[in-house]
């Protein structure tokens, strides 16, 4: 079974996140692999480990500028077999559809060495949180979509997931090849250990440009984007914040605050 995991390079949640020229600022210093992609990597590794030695192969793929290579390096440290970094000036400013097109082309490129059975993604990237990429990529690849999986099993050429929607818990199945997005409930991601970190150092990262994977640059990037961020500004911090220490009347003060604001 060959599995492709998509990983995204995002600003660290604890860093001061910002925008530059309408796109999320991503720098090597405070960037990292999207935390929710760790669940995708973990799901892929668990599937590989459930197979006899040598029958499973996991590729991690990222799209982005030079710094984005950190995302696939992290995936290597976690134990994936191959890392691919698609990098091209023309990609900058792509919307989700442009990114999906590039990722789909990368999957097709990997398929030249053998079929890909599963594409696994995280449920969202913690910078944009739109959750659109999994659906867009499944559509672009024209394969089944099994999104927001809180569990995943693969047997006899079929993937089965459970998903917790707002109104119901669903069990959904689809024949492979399929795209699966996993939630942070799906598993507990492993930590890279010293041995894996050392081993990852000697693993190469394959770098592809758009022409390597047959994508016409005019189909992606800012020019092809159907949406443009025209303004981004930090919100002012909340004004007049009050914190009191309970000295026996904390609850009364809380109630008074709510009444004063017309909220109780």
């Amino acid at each position: 079974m060959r599995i492709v995991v998509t990983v995204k390079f995002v600003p660290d949640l604890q860093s001061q996140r910002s925008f530059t020229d309408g796109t999320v600022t991503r720098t090597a210093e405070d960037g990292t692999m999207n935390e929710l992609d760790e669940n995708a990597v973990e799901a892929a590794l668990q599937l590989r480990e459930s197979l006899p030695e040598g029958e499973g192969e996991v590729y991690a793929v990222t799209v982005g500028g030079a710094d984005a290579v950190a995302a696939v390096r992290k995936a290597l440290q976690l134990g994936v077999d191959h890392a691919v970094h698609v990098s091209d000036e023309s990609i900058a400013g792509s919307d989700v559809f442009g990114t999906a097109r590039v990722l789909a082309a990368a999957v097709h490129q990997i398929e030249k060495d053998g079929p890909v059975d599963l594409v696994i993604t995280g449920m969202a990237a913690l910078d944009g949180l739109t959750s659109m990429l999994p659906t867009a990529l499944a559509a672009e690849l024209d394969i089944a979509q099994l999104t927001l999986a809180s569990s995943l099993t693969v047997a006899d050429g079929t993937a089965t997931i459970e998903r917790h929607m707002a109104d119901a818990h669903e069990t959904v199945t689809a024949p492979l090849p399929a795209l699966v997005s996993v939630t942070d409930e799906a598993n507990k991601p492993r930590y890279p250990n010293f041995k894996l970190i050392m081993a990852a150092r000697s693993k190469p990262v394959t770098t592809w440009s758009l022409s390597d994977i047959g994508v016409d640059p005019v189909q992606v990037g800012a020019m092809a984007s159907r949406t443009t961020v025209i303004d981004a500004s930090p919100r002012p911090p909340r004004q007049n914040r009050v914190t009191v220490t309970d000295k026996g009347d904390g609850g009364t003060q809380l109630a008074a605050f709510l009444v004063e604001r017309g909220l109780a």
Partner: protein
Amino acid sequence: MTDVMVAVLVEHRGNEIAQPTLETLTLARSLGAPVAVWMGDQPPADQIERLGAYGAAEVRVVEVGDGARHAVTAAAAVGSATADASVVLMVSTFANKEIATRLALATGAGVVVDAAGAQMVNGRVETTQTVFAATWDVRTRVNADKAVVTLRPNTTQALPAETPAAPEVVSVIPLLPEVRESMVSVTPVEREDGVPLSEAPVVVSGGRGTGGDYTLVRELADVLGGAVGASRDATDEGWISHEHMVGQTGVTVTPALYVACGISGAVHHRGGMQASGTIVAVNIDPDAPIFEIADFGVVGDLNDVIPQAIAAIKAHRQG
């Protein structure tokens, strides 16, 4: 400007229209002429009347049965019903974001999800969103001729139209694609009384500090007419079901009032509630990050503070 057709996908539970749909219709009226799209069995007359009261000149009914649970089918159904619309609005839910994505791919539309508002500027839709745990405001322009936008609940005040419409009801026969996915089982989530968490005007949440006892949290929620939320810690502990989890991977809420009881305020939690109107926090730890974003914070034991607050609110109401 009324020549712009704005389709609104109706959220409904059974035959009851969900409140965020009325908010979405209100926003739709400011963009153009609203048309409601009802996926499911023919709606009853009173619900059609309600859609008319919020300005829908037409209700398009598209019936796909359980197919509505598949993004592929639902997107095709919505697409069939909105082919002539310049703007398609939906309520932000995980399911609708997938429908929006598929619809945009099929139609070439530009899509913005989790918007807090939208307006028409020189014939283009511009949206506002808050991002990065509500620390930034972003404006986005849709460049394509068609726009698909999902709107967060509680971001627009629902107001009936000045002149109610008497909507014409039209059945739409959708063109449905092949579906690869099969639904093996669907187990409905038992709903608690009251409004769903994502739509509630008040949310009272409990975290690790509750020690697993939600009695006080529920009581305060009752008194304030709110829904009960929880932190990831609490749902991971199994103290309360996953549906209650407020956070960037759970439910995102923007109520007028958010009360955090015994929640430290990790960035994952803040990402799901920081855009709330007023934030109140009670925590025993003065260094809890939740105090950095609370309009009113009480450093103290919630077992002391909450009962006293409930009593004081009740006393105030009795005058």
